[in-house]
């Protein structure tokens, strides 16, 4: 392959999607100029990816406007958050409720023969 052909295909070669990939590999093995061109492309693509972290600069008020869009939680959601936040309290409360229920059931069972 000629250098011009290889360089035309380098943008696709970066993703492993160039036609004649094996021929390009063979060319790059001996052609330093094309290897340097490939390195230039790779550097460029790395720099592009780095732009992602370089957010534009929104107005300072934007974040507060976005936060204001958050939907208010339902009553059920609030109960769930509390359960997730304080699992120990809820476990203790559940145990206490079970003990009280057991006590009431037992008392009722004792009273029943007397009524009969």
């Amino acid at each position: 392959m000629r250098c011009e052909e290889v360089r035309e295909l380098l943008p696709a070669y970066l993703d492993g999607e160039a036609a004649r990939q094996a021929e390009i590999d063979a060319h790059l093995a001996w052609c330093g100029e094309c290897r340097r061109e490939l390195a230039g492309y790779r550097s460029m693509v790395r720099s592009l990816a780095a732009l992602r972290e370089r957010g534009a600069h929104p107005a300072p008020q934007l974040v507060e406007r976005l936060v204001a869009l958050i939907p208010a939680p339902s009553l059920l959601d609030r109960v769930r958050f509390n359960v997730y936040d304080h699992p120990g309290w809820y476990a203790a409360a559940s145990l206490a409720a079970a003990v009280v229920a057991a006590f009431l059931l037992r008392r009722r069972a004792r009273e029943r023969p007397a009524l009969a």
Partner: protein
Amino acid sequence: MSPRHLPRNLGDEDGVQAVVDGGVTKELLARCRRNDPRALEELVRRTHRRVYGLAYRLVRDPHEAEDVAQEAYLRMFQGLGGFREEARFETWMHRIVTNTAFNHLRRRGRFGELLEDGALDVATAVRSESSFADRDELERAMERLPAGQRIVLVLKDVYGLSCREIGHELGIEEGAVKVRLHRARRRLREVLTEGDGDEV
């Protein structure tokens, strides 16, 4: 809005929770899925610059980018409950912003410009420095690309969407996206090296 009755210290968990991406942890996402407003606020604070940045790069107007960001977050709040693929959160977020921005451009009759894969106006090409350490130079060089190429380059090489996803959002074939992407890379490389012959 300052929600009460809600979990605490989401930020303190960074050290121990796996970061999914962009500073967002699995724990934070799990809380967001439960409609926890504190978690959603944390998510907004951690991601809003990224979201605004993408919106701005797509619509190229600061006020319109804010509108797009607001609409995108509303959609995210609605969709987070059903979102399960933590590893794909960033891509999911980028797709929502992209889709929202494209709808915004359609409403304003500007979407068509993204479908044009026109030739570069060589006369406006900028000369680059020999290094991409100057990100402004790279951003300025991208501005010189035709809109249809620039948008594909931004979505693929900057924000990591796949060619298939980009094709879906633009309404064009995946193959056409790849053709544009490769042209855009070639053009950008030409713009950046034009005039000085420097290698990067």
